[in-house]
Protein backbone atom coordinates (compact mmCIF):
# COMPACT_ATOMS: atom_id res chain seq x y z
CA UNK A 1 0.00 0.00 0.00
CA UNK A 2 1.28 3.45 -0.86
CA UNK A 3 2.05 5.80 2.02
CA UNK A 4 -0.58 8.36 2.85
CA UNK A 5 -1.07 11.16 5.31
CA UNK A 6 -3.85 10.54 7.80
CA UNK A 7 -6.02 13.19 9.39
CA UNK A 8 -9.47 13.52 10.81
CA UNK A 9 -11.95 16.30 11.20
CA UNK A 10 -15.18 16.98 13.09
CA UNK A 11 -16.11 19.83 10.76
CA UNK A 12 -17.89 19.32 7.45
CA UNK A 13 -16.52 22.53 5.91
CA UNK A 14 -12.99 21.53 6.78
CA UNK A 15 -13.52 18.10 5.25
CA UNK A 16 -14.83 19.75 2.06
CA UNK A 17 -11.85 22.13 1.97
CA UNK A 18 -9.30 19.39 2.47
CA UNK A 19 -10.98 17.12 -0.06
CA UNK A 20 -11.30 19.84 -2.67
CA UNK A 21 -7.82 21.31 -2.32
CA UNK A 22 -5.81 18.13 -2.89
CA UNK A 23 -5.90 16.03 -6.04
CA UNK A 24 -5.25 12.68 -4.37
CA UNK A 25 -7.22 13.05 -1.16
CA UNK A 26 -9.85 10.50 -0.22
CA UNK A 27 -12.52 10.42 2.44
CA UNK A 28 -12.64 7.38 4.66
CA UNK A 29 -15.61 6.31 6.79
CA UNK A 30 -16.33 2.58 7.19
CA UNK A 31 -13.41 1.76 4.93
CA UNK A 32 -14.81 -1.58 3.80
CA UNK A 33 -14.27 -0.89 0.10
CA UNK A 34 -11.50 1.68 0.28
CA UNK A 35 -9.08 -0.26 2.52
CA UNK A 36 -9.55 -3.29 0.29
CA UNK A 37 -8.77 -1.31 -2.89
CA UNK A 38 -5.87 0.59 -1.29
CA UNK A 39 -4.32 -2.69 -0.24
CA UNK A 40 -4.59 -3.99 -3.80
CA UNK A 41 -3.03 -0.74 -5.13
CA UNK A 42 -6.12 -0.37 -7.29
CA UNK A 43 -6.76 2.95 -5.59
CA UNK A 44 -3.94 5.17 -4.36
CA UNK A 45 -4.27 8.16 -2.08
CA UNK A 46 -1.81 10.61 -0.61
CA UNK A 47 -4.18 11.85 2.08
CA UNK A 48 -6.97 10.06 3.89
CA UNK A 49 -9.50 12.27 5.62
CA UNK A 50 -11.27 10.34 8.37
CA UNK A 51 -14.85 11.69 8.52
CA UNK A 52 -16.21 9.26 11.11
CA UNK A 53 -16.55 12.08 13.64
CA UNK A 54 -18.70 14.34 11.43
CA UNK A 55 -22.18 14.83 12.93
CA UNK A 56 -24.05 13.27 9.99
CA UNK A 57 -25.03 9.84 11.31
CA UNK A 58 -28.64 10.52 12.36
CA UNK A 59 -31.68 8.69 11.09
CA UNK A 60 -34.76 10.92 11.18
CA UNK A 61 -38.33 9.84 10.41
CA UNK A 62 -41.04 12.42 9.64
CA UNK A 63 -44.81 12.34 9.82
CA UNK A 64 -46.68 13.25 6.63
CA UNK A 65 -48.64 15.95 8.49
CA UNK A 66 -45.65 17.97 9.60
CA UNK A 67 -43.43 17.12 6.65
CA UNK A 68 -45.39 16.46 3.47
CA UNK A 69 -42.34 16.09 1.21
CA UNK A 70 -39.78 14.19 3.25
CA UNK A 71 -40.45 10.87 4.96
CA UNK A 72 -36.97 10.09 6.19
CA UNK A 73 -33.49 11.51 6.31
CA UNK A 74 -30.62 9.10 6.70
CA UNK A 75 -27.28 10.65 7.54
CA UNK A 76 -24.41 9.59 5.29
CA UNK A 77 -22.50 8.17 8.26
CA UNK A 78 -25.37 6.01 9.56
CA UNK A 79 -24.05 2.45 9.66
CA UNK A 80 -25.79 -0.06 7.43
CA UNK A 81 -26.74 -2.17 10.47
CA UNK A 82 -28.35 0.83 12.18
CA UNK A 83 -30.47 1.63 9.13
CA UNK A 84 -31.51 -1.98 8.58
CA UNK A 85 -32.49 -2.50 12.23
CA UNK A 86 -34.17 0.91 12.71
CA UNK A 87 -37.76 0.19 13.79
CA UNK A 88 -39.36 2.90 11.69
CA UNK A 89 -37.27 2.10 8.64
CA UNK A 90 -38.46 -1.50 8.98
CA UNK A 91 -42.05 -0.24 9.33
CA UNK A 92 -42.10 2.47 6.65
CA UNK A 93 -39.39 1.23 4.28
CA UNK A 94 -39.07 -2.55 4.73
CA UNK A 95 -37.55 -2.80 1.24
CA UNK A 96 -34.47 -0.89 2.42
CA UNK A 97 -34.01 -3.04 5.49
CA UNK A 98 -34.37 -6.25 3.48
CA UNK A 99 -31.92 -5.06 0.84
CA UNK A 100 -29.26 -4.07 3.37
CA UNK A 101 -29.58 -7.33 5.29
CA UNK A 102 -29.18 -9.32 2.09
CA UNK A 103 -25.79 -7.73 1.44
CA UNK A 104 -22.31 -8.38 2.81
CA UNK A 105 -21.84 -9.87 6.31
CA UNK A 106 -22.84 -8.64 9.79
CA UNK A 107 -19.28 -7.44 10.44
CA UNK A 108 -19.16 -5.45 7.21
CA UNK A 109 -22.64 -3.99 7.79
CA UNK A 110 -21.50 -2.84 11.23
CA UNK A 111 -18.64 -0.92 9.61
CA UNK A 112 -20.12 0.26 6.32
CA UNK A 113 -21.95 3.58 6.12
CA UNK A 114 -24.84 4.66 3.91
CA UNK A 115 -22.67 7.23 2.10
CA UNK A 116 -19.95 4.64 1.61
CA UNK A 117 -22.45 2.15 0.26
CA UNK A 118 -23.57 4.74 -2.31
CA UNK A 119 -19.89 5.46 -3.12
CA UNK A 120 -18.72 1.85 -3.46
CA UNK A 121 -16.97 1.38 -6.77
CA UNK A 122 -18.66 -0.23 -9.72
CA UNK A 123 -16.15 -3.02 -10.04
CA UNK A 124 -15.23 -6.44 -11.34
CA UNK A 125 -12.42 -8.96 -10.89
CA UNK A 126 -10.38 -7.34 -13.69
CA UNK A 127 -10.68 -3.92 -12.05
CA UNK A 128 -9.30 -5.45 -8.85
CA UNK A 129 -6.33 -7.04 -10.62
CA UNK A 130 -3.56 -4.53 -11.38
CA UNK A 131 -1.79 -7.10 -13.59
CA UNK A 132 -4.41 -6.73 -16.34
CA UNK A 133 -5.75 -3.72 -18.26
CA UNK A 134 -8.98 -2.04 -17.20
CA UNK A 135 -10.57 1.08 -18.66
CA UNK A 136 -11.95 2.05 -15.28
CA UNK A 137 -8.61 1.75 -13.49
CA UNK A 138 -6.44 2.97 -16.37
CA UNK A 139 -8.54 4.84 -18.93
CA UNK A 140 -7.91 3.64 -22.47
CA UNK A 141 -6.11 0.43 -21.49
CA UNK A 142 -8.91 -1.88 -22.60
CA UNK A 143 -11.56 -4.16 -21.11
CA UNK A 144 -10.58 -7.80 -20.70
CA UNK A 145 -14.05 -8.63 -19.33
CA UNK A 146 -15.51 -8.13 -22.81
CA UNK A 147 -14.64 -11.44 -24.44
CA UNK A 148 -13.20 -12.72 -21.15
CA UNK A 149 -14.71 -14.20 -18.02
CA UNK A 150 -17.94 -12.29 -17.71
CA UNK A 151 -20.46 -14.51 -15.99
CA UNK A 152 -21.08 -11.99 -13.23
CA UNK A 153 -21.02 -8.88 -15.42
CA UNK A 154 -23.72 -6.44 -16.50
CA UNK A 155 -26.23 -6.80 -19.30
CA UNK A 156 -27.83 -3.36 -18.94
CA UNK A 157 -26.21 0.06 -19.20
CA UNK A 158 -22.98 -1.36 -20.56
CA UNK A 159 -20.61 0.23 -23.09
CA UNK A 160 -17.70 -0.86 -25.26
CA UNK A 161 -15.44 0.33 -22.42
CA UNK A 162 -16.92 -1.32 -19.37
CA UNK A 163 -19.41 -3.97 -18.31
CA UNK A 164 -18.79 -3.98 -14.55
CA UNK A 165 -21.80 -4.29 -12.24
CA UNK A 166 -22.79 -1.89 -9.48
CA UNK A 167 -22.82 -4.32 -6.58
CA UNK A 168 -24.95 -2.53 -3.98
CA UNK A 169 -28.18 -4.02 -2.67
CA UNK A 170 -29.18 -1.02 -0.57
CA UNK A 171 -28.96 1.38 -3.52
CA UNK A 172 -31.31 -0.80 -5.59
CA UNK A 173 -33.98 -0.37 -2.91
CA UNK A 174 -33.15 3.34 -2.60
CA UNK A 175 -33.62 4.08 -6.31
CA UNK A 176 -36.86 2.08 -6.29
CA UNK A 177 -38.13 4.43 -3.57
CA UNK A 178 -37.00 7.63 -5.36
CA UNK A 179 -34.25 8.44 -2.87
CA UNK A 180 -32.33 11.66 -3.28
CA UNK A 181 -28.82 12.41 -2.10
CA UNK A 182 -27.93 15.71 -0.51
CA UNK A 183 -24.44 16.83 -1.57
CA UNK A 184 -22.38 19.50 0.10
CA UNK A 185 -19.38 21.06 -1.59
CA UNK A 186 -17.31 24.20 -2.09
CA UNK A 187 -20.21 25.74 -4.07
CA UNK A 188 -22.83 24.88 -1.46
CA UNK A 189 -25.52 22.22 -1.29
CA UNK A 190 -27.50 20.47 -3.98
CA UNK A 191 -29.93 17.59 -4.14
CA UNK A 192 -29.82 14.90 -6.80
CA UNK A 193 -32.00 11.85 -7.44
CA UNK A 194 -29.85 8.85 -6.57
CA UNK A 195 -30.67 7.18 -9.88
CA UNK A 196 -29.18 10.22 -11.68
CA UNK A 197 -26.23 10.49 -9.30
CA UNK A 198 -24.69 7.50 -11.05
CA UNK A 199 -23.27 7.84 -14.55
CA UNK A 200 -23.31 5.14 -17.20
CA UNK A 201 -19.80 4.00 -18.15
CA UNK A 202 -19.91 5.24 -21.76
CA UNK A 203 -16.39 6.19 -22.85
CA UNK A 204 -15.42 7.21 -19.33
CA UNK A 205 -15.99 4.32 -16.94
CA UNK A 206 -13.49 5.88 -14.53
CA UNK A 207 -16.11 8.55 -13.77
CA UNK A 208 -18.91 6.80 -11.89
CA UNK A 209 -20.96 9.65 -10.48
CA UNK A 210 -21.53 13.36 -10.82
CA UNK A 211 -19.71 14.42 -7.65
CA UNK A 212 -17.64 17.56 -8.21
CA UNK A 213 -14.21 18.03 -6.58
CA UNK A 214 -14.67 18.55 -2.86
CA UNK A 215 -18.30 17.41 -2.77
CA UNK A 216 -19.44 15.11 0.01
CA UNK A 217 -22.64 13.09 0.37
CA UNK A 218 -24.28 14.42 3.51
CA UNK A 219 -27.52 12.48 3.63
CA UNK A 220 -30.03 10.37 1.79
CA UNK A 221 -33.57 11.68 1.66
CA UNK A 222 -36.67 9.59 1.10
CA UNK A 223 -40.18 10.71 0.23
CA UNK A 224 -43.06 9.16 2.18
CA UNK A 225 -43.66 5.66 0.92
CA UNK A 226 -47.07 4.14 0.13
CA UNK A 227 -45.33 0.83 -0.57
CA UNK A 228 -44.67 -0.59 2.91
CA UNK A 229 -47.56 -3.08 2.58
CA UNK A 230 -46.55 -4.49 -0.79
CA UNK A 231 -42.82 -4.60 -1.35
CA UNK A 232 -40.14 -7.24 -1.61
CA UNK A 233 -36.40 -7.42 -2.22
CA UNK A 234 -35.38 -10.67 -3.86
CA UNK A 235 -31.71 -11.50 -4.32
CA UNK A 236 -30.54 -14.48 -6.36
CA UNK A 237 -26.92 -15.54 -5.92
CA UNK A 238 -24.56 -18.48 -6.11
CA UNK A 239 -24.63 -19.16 -2.38
CA UNK A 240 -27.27 -18.36 0.15
CA UNK A 241 -25.46 -15.62 2.05
CA UNK A 242 -22.50 -13.20 1.87
CA UNK A 243 -22.38 -13.11 -1.90
CA UNK A 244 -23.03 -10.54 -4.61
CA UNK A 245 -26.29 -10.76 -6.52
CA UNK A 246 -26.41 -12.48 -9.87
CA UNK A 247 -29.76 -10.73 -10.13
CA UNK A 248 -31.74 -8.82 -7.56
CA UNK A 249 -35.09 -7.07 -7.80
CA UNK A 250 -36.59 -4.43 -5.53
CA UNK A 251 -40.32 -4.43 -6.24
CA UNK A 252 -42.95 -2.23 -4.63
CA UNK A 253 -46.65 -1.80 -5.36
CA UNK A 254 -49.36 0.51 -4.17
CA UNK A 255 -52.72 -1.20 -4.57
CA UNK A 256 -56.11 0.51 -4.23
CA UNK A 257 -59.41 -1.30 -4.72
CA UNK A 258 -57.63 -4.25 -6.28
CA UNK A 259 -55.78 -2.12 -8.86
CA UNK A 260 -52.11 -1.21 -8.98
CA UNK A 261 -51.92 2.60 -8.77
CA UNK A 262 -48.15 2.93 -8.37
CA UNK A 263 -45.33 0.48 -9.05
CA UNK A 264 -41.57 0.38 -8.67
CA UNK A 265 -39.15 -2.14 -10.10
CA UNK A 266 -35.42 -1.71 -9.64
CA UNK A 267 -32.72 -4.20 -10.59
CA UNK A 268 -29.35 -5.09 -9.11
CA UNK A 269 -26.58 -7.44 -10.22
CA UNK A 270 -27.35 -6.90 -13.90
CA UNK A 271 -26.55 -3.27 -14.60
CA UNK A 272 -23.71 -0.77 -14.45
CA UNK A 273 -25.72 1.28 -11.96
CA UNK A 274 -28.77 0.66 -9.76
CA UNK A 275 -31.38 0.25 -12.48
CA UNK A 276 -34.99 1.39 -12.69
CA UNK A 277 -37.15 -0.69 -15.05
CA UNK A 278 -39.50 2.18 -15.88
CA UNK A 279 -41.31 0.52 -18.80
CA UNK A 280 -42.10 -2.52 -16.69
CA UNK A 281 -43.46 -0.24 -13.97
CA UNK A 282 -45.77 1.55 -16.46
CA UNK A 283 -47.13 -1.74 -17.69
CA UNK A 284 -48.43 -2.55 -14.21
CA UNK A 285 -50.37 0.68 -13.68
CA UNK A 286 -54.15 0.35 -13.55
CA UNK A 287 -53.96 -3.44 -13.69
CA UNK A 288 -55.01 -6.10 -11.20
CA UNK A 289 -52.13 -8.10 -9.78
CA UNK A 290 -51.78 -11.51 -11.45
CA UNK A 291 -49.05 -13.99 -12.23
CA UNK A 292 -49.48 -13.37 -15.96
CA UNK A 293 -49.14 -9.63 -15.53
CA UNK A 294 -46.03 -9.99 -13.37
CA UNK A 295 -44.47 -12.37 -15.92
CA UNK A 296 -45.02 -9.69 -18.56
CA UNK A 297 -43.39 -7.08 -16.33
CA UNK A 298 -40.41 -9.41 -16.01
CA UNK A 299 -40.15 -9.66 -19.81
CA UNK A 300 -40.27 -5.90 -20.24
CA UNK A 301 -37.85 -5.18 -17.38
CA UNK A 302 -34.94 -6.60 -19.33
CA UNK A 303 -35.66 -5.12 -22.79
CA UNK A 304 -32.52 -3.73 -24.38
CA UNK A 305 -30.22 -6.13 -22.53
CA UNK A 306 -26.87 -6.86 -24.15
CA UNK A 307 -25.64 -10.15 -22.77
CA UNK A 308 -22.03 -11.26 -23.06
CA UNK A 309 -20.83 -14.77 -23.84
CA UNK A 310 -21.11 -16.09 -20.28
CA UNK A 311 -23.91 -14.06 -18.73
CA UNK A 312 -26.81 -14.58 -21.13
CA UNK A 313 -28.48 -16.64 -18.39
CA UNK A 314 -29.11 -13.38 -16.56
CA UNK A 315 -31.78 -12.40 -19.09
CA UNK A 316 -34.09 -15.27 -18.20
CA UNK A 317 -33.07 -15.12 -14.53
CA UNK A 318 -34.02 -11.43 -14.36
CA UNK A 319 -37.46 -12.07 -15.84
CA UNK A 320 -38.17 -14.76 -13.28
CA UNK A 321 -36.69 -12.79 -10.39
CA UNK A 322 -38.90 -9.79 -11.16
CA UNK A 323 -41.97 -11.99 -11.43
CA UNK A 324 -41.22 -13.76 -8.16
CA UNK A 325 -40.44 -10.51 -6.32
CA UNK A 326 -43.73 -8.99 -7.50
CA UNK A 327 -45.63 -12.12 -6.41
CA UNK A 328 -43.93 -11.93 -3.02
CA UNK A 329 -44.83 -8.24 -2.78
CA UNK A 330 -48.53 -9.12 -3.00
CA UNK A 331 -48.04 -11.97 -0.55
CA UNK A 332 -48.00 -14.95 -2.89
Amino acid at each position, binding site marked *: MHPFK*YGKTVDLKEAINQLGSQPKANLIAGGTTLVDLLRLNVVTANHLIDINQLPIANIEIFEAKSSPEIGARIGALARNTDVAMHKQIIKNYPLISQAILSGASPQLRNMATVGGNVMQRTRCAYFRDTAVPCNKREPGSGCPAIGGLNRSHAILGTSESCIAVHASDMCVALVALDAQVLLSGPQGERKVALVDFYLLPGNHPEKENLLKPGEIIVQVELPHSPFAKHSHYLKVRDRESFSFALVSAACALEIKNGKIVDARIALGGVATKPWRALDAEKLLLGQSPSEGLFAKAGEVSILGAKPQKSNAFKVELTKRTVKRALLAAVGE
Partner: protein
Amino acid sequence: MTYKISRRRFGQLAIATSALAALYEYNFAKSNIQALAKQSPAWQGGNIPKLTKVNVNFQVNGTKQAVEVDSRMSLLDCLREKLKLTGSKKGCDHGQCGACTVMVNGRRINSCLTFACMHEGDEITTIEGLAKDGNLHPMQEAFIAHDGFQCGYCTPGQIMSAVALLSETCGKQDSDVAECMSGNICRCAAYPNIVAAIQEVRKGKVNASL
Protein backbone atom coordinates in the same frame (compact mmCIF):
# COMPACT_ATOMS: atom_id res chain seq x y z
CA MET B 1 44.86 -25.88 13.46
CA THR B 2 41.72 -24.85 15.24
CA TYR B 3 40.29 -21.42 14.73
CA LYS B 4 39.26 -19.93 18.02
CA ILE B 5 37.08 -16.93 18.60
CA SER B 6 36.93 -15.42 22.02
CA ARG B 7 33.56 -14.86 23.67
CA ARG B 8 34.07 -11.10 23.43
CA ARG B 9 35.02 -11.24 19.73
CA PHE B 10 31.98 -13.39 19.03
CA GLY B 11 29.72 -10.80 20.65
CA GLN B 12 31.29 -7.98 18.62
CA LEU B 13 30.85 -9.99 15.42
CA ALA B 14 27.22 -10.66 16.19
CA ILE B 15 26.55 -6.98 16.79
CA ALA B 16 28.31 -5.95 13.60
CA THR B 17 26.36 -8.54 11.58
CA SER B 18 22.99 -7.45 12.88
CA ALA B 19 23.85 -3.80 12.29
CA LEU B 20 24.73 -4.62 8.67
CA ALA B 21 21.53 -6.62 8.27
CA ALA B 22 19.47 -3.77 9.68
CA LEU B 23 21.15 -1.29 7.33
CA TYR B 24 20.49 -3.59 4.38
CA GLU B 25 16.87 -3.98 5.37
CA TYR B 26 16.47 -0.23 5.76
CA ASN B 27 17.95 0.40 2.32
CA PHE B 28 15.87 -2.37 0.83
CA ALA B 29 12.69 -0.95 2.34
CA LYS B 30 13.62 2.54 1.15
CA SER B 31 14.36 1.43 -2.41
CA ASN B 32 11.21 -0.68 -2.36
CA ILE B 33 9.11 2.33 -1.45
CA GLN B 34 10.85 4.41 -4.07
CA ALA B 35 10.22 1.74 -6.70
CA LEU B 36 6.56 1.55 -5.69
CA ALA B 37 6.35 5.31 -5.70
CA LYS B 38 7.64 5.47 -9.26
CA GLN B 39 4.79 3.22 -10.42
CA SER B 40 2.17 5.13 -8.56
CA PRO B 41 0.34 7.97 -10.24
CA ALA B 42 -0.24 9.41 -6.77
CA TRP B 43 3.39 10.25 -6.35
CA GLN B 44 4.51 11.20 -9.83
CA GLY B 45 6.55 14.33 -9.86
CA GLY B 46 9.08 12.96 -7.39
CA ASN B 47 7.01 13.87 -4.37
CA ILE B 48 7.72 10.81 -2.27
CA PRO B 49 6.14 11.19 1.14
CA LYS B 50 7.74 10.22 4.39
CA LEU B 51 6.02 7.36 6.10
CA THR B 52 3.30 8.87 8.20
CA LYS B 53 3.36 7.88 11.82
CA VAL B 54 0.25 8.38 13.93
CA ASN B 55 -0.07 8.15 17.70
CA VAL B 56 -3.21 6.42 18.83
CA ASN B 57 -4.65 5.56 22.24
CA PHE B 58 -7.25 2.91 22.80
CA GLN B 59 -8.27 0.19 25.21
CA VAL B 60 -7.69 -3.42 24.36
CA ASN B 61 -9.34 -6.00 26.60
CA GLY B 62 -9.67 -3.37 29.30
CA THR B 63 -6.04 -2.24 29.19
CA LYS B 64 -5.07 1.23 27.99
CA GLN B 65 -2.64 1.15 25.09
CA ALA B 66 -0.69 3.98 23.47
CA VAL B 67 0.93 3.02 20.20
CA GLU B 68 2.67 4.72 17.32
CA VAL B 69 1.55 3.23 14.04
CA ASP B 70 2.20 3.71 10.36
CA SER B 71 -1.01 5.24 8.96
CA ARG B 72 -1.36 2.17 6.73
CA MET B 73 -1.29 -0.33 9.58
CA SER B 74 -4.55 -2.26 9.90
CA LEU B 75 -6.06 -2.67 13.33
CA LEU B 76 -5.42 -6.39 12.90
CA ASP B 77 -1.70 -5.92 12.25
CA CYS B 78 -1.49 -3.50 15.16
CA LEU B 79 -3.05 -6.04 17.53
CA ARG B 80 -0.84 -8.85 16.29
CA GLU B 81 2.46 -7.14 15.61
CA LYS B 82 2.53 -4.21 18.03
CA LEU B 83 0.56 -5.60 20.96
CA LYS B 84 1.48 -9.25 20.39
CA LEU B 85 -2.16 -10.29 20.65
CA THR B 86 -1.93 -12.97 17.99
CA GLY B 87 -5.30 -14.58 18.73
CA SER B 88 -7.00 -12.57 15.98
CA LYS B 89 -6.00 -14.18 12.70
CA LYS B 90 -5.17 -12.89 9.25
CA GLY B 91 -6.98 -15.07 6.75
CA CYS B 92 -7.75 -13.15 3.56
CA ASP B 93 -6.89 -9.59 4.65
CA HIS B 94 -9.83 -8.38 2.53
CA GLY B 95 -12.88 -8.75 4.76
CA GLN B 96 -14.02 -11.94 3.11
CA CYS B 97 -13.23 -14.61 5.71
CA GLY B 98 -13.90 -13.16 9.19
CA ALA B 99 -10.83 -14.70 10.89
CA CYS B 100 -9.84 -11.20 12.07
CA THR B 101 -13.19 -10.44 13.75
CA VAL B 102 -12.88 -8.35 16.91
CA MET B 103 -15.32 -6.16 18.78
CA VAL B 104 -14.97 -2.40 18.70
CA ASN B 105 -17.22 -0.53 21.13
CA GLY B 106 -19.32 -3.67 21.47
CA ARG B 107 -19.77 -4.35 17.75
CA ARG B 108 -18.07 -7.01 15.72
CA ILE B 109 -16.01 -5.78 12.78
CA ASN B 110 -13.33 -7.05 10.41
CA SER B 111 -10.13 -5.69 11.93
CA CYS B 112 -8.30 -6.14 8.62
CA LEU B 113 -10.47 -3.54 6.86
CA THR B 114 -9.82 -0.67 9.22
CA PHE B 115 -6.70 1.31 10.01
CA ALA B 116 -5.42 1.27 13.58
CA CYS B 117 -5.06 5.06 13.52
CA MET B 118 -8.84 5.40 13.12
CA HIS B 119 -9.53 3.95 16.57
CA GLU B 120 -8.58 6.72 18.96
CA GLY B 121 -10.51 6.25 22.21
CA ASP B 122 -12.16 3.00 21.14
CA GLU B 123 -12.72 -0.04 23.32
CA ILE B 124 -11.52 -3.15 21.56
CA THR B 125 -12.13 -6.73 22.64
CA THR B 126 -10.20 -9.61 21.12
CA ILE B 127 -10.41 -13.34 21.72
CA GLU B 128 -7.78 -12.88 24.45
CA GLY B 129 -10.23 -10.70 26.36
CA LEU B 130 -13.08 -13.20 26.67
CA ALA B 131 -11.84 -15.38 29.50
CA LYS B 132 -12.33 -13.87 32.97
CA ASP B 133 -10.32 -14.82 36.05
CA GLY B 134 -8.93 -17.87 34.36
CA ASN B 135 -12.37 -19.12 33.29
CA LEU B 136 -13.18 -19.47 29.64
CA HIS B 137 -16.15 -17.58 28.23
CA PRO B 138 -19.22 -19.87 27.95
CA MET B 139 -18.98 -19.60 24.16
CA GLN B 140 -15.40 -20.85 24.30
CA GLU B 141 -16.53 -23.73 26.53
CA ALA B 142 -19.35 -24.54 24.12
CA PHE B 143 -17.00 -24.56 21.10
CA ILE B 144 -14.81 -27.07 22.94
CA ALA B 145 -17.78 -29.18 24.06
CA HIS B 146 -19.20 -29.32 20.53
CA ASP B 147 -15.86 -29.65 18.76
CA GLY B 148 -16.61 -26.47 16.80
CA PHE B 149 -13.36 -26.50 14.86
CA GLN B 150 -10.84 -28.64 13.13
CA CYS B 151 -7.66 -26.74 12.28
CA GLY B 152 -8.69 -23.86 14.54
CA TYR B 153 -7.49 -20.99 12.37
CA CYS B 154 -10.94 -19.42 11.94
CA THR B 155 -11.96 -20.17 15.54
CA PRO B 156 -11.06 -16.86 17.23
CA GLY B 157 -13.09 -15.01 14.59
CA GLN B 158 -15.95 -17.50 14.83
CA ILE B 159 -16.09 -17.14 18.61
CA MET B 160 -15.94 -13.34 18.50
CA SER B 161 -18.80 -13.33 15.98
CA ALA B 162 -20.73 -15.85 18.05
CA VAL B 163 -20.37 -13.75 21.22
CA ALA B 164 -21.44 -10.62 19.31
CA LEU B 165 -24.43 -12.47 17.91
CA LEU B 166 -25.78 -13.01 21.45
CA SER B 167 -26.60 -9.32 21.73
CA GLU B 168 -27.81 -8.89 18.13
CA THR B 169 -31.17 -9.61 16.52
CA CYS B 170 -31.04 -13.14 15.17
CA GLY B 171 -33.86 -15.65 14.62
CA LYS B 172 -34.18 -18.85 16.60
CA GLN B 173 -33.53 -21.45 13.91
CA ASP B 174 -30.20 -23.04 13.04
CA SER B 175 -30.56 -21.47 9.60
CA ASP B 176 -30.86 -18.03 11.24
CA VAL B 177 -27.61 -18.65 13.11
CA ALA B 178 -25.95 -19.74 9.87
CA GLU B 179 -27.08 -16.45 8.25
CA CYS B 180 -25.82 -14.38 11.19
CA MET B 181 -22.48 -16.22 11.05
CA SER B 182 -22.09 -15.91 7.26
CA GLY B 183 -19.20 -13.48 7.63
CA ASN B 184 -17.02 -16.22 9.12
CA ILE B 185 -15.74 -18.85 6.75
CA CYS B 186 -14.46 -22.24 7.97
CA ARG B 187 -12.63 -24.19 5.31
CA CYS B 188 -12.65 -27.30 7.50
CA ALA B 189 -16.46 -26.94 7.34
CA ALA B 190 -17.06 -27.36 11.07
CA TYR B 191 -20.29 -25.42 10.57
CA PRO B 192 -22.77 -27.91 12.12
CA ASN B 193 -20.74 -28.04 15.32
CA ILE B 194 -20.28 -24.27 15.40
CA VAL B 195 -24.04 -23.78 15.06
CA ALA B 196 -24.66 -26.37 17.79
CA ALA B 197 -22.24 -24.61 20.15
CA ILE B 198 -23.90 -21.23 19.56
CA GLN B 199 -27.40 -22.63 19.95
CA GLU B 200 -26.48 -24.22 23.26
CA VAL B 201 -25.27 -20.90 24.64
CA ARG B 202 -28.29 -19.07 23.24
CA LYS B 203 -30.71 -21.52 24.82
CA GLY B 204 -29.35 -20.35 28.11
CA LYS B 205 -27.85 -23.58 29.30
CA VAL B 206 -24.91 -21.48 30.25
CA ASN B 207 -24.78 -17.86 31.32
CA ALA B 208 -23.12 -15.95 28.52
CA SER B 209 -22.30 -12.32 28.18
CA LEU B 210 -19.25 -10.22 27.60
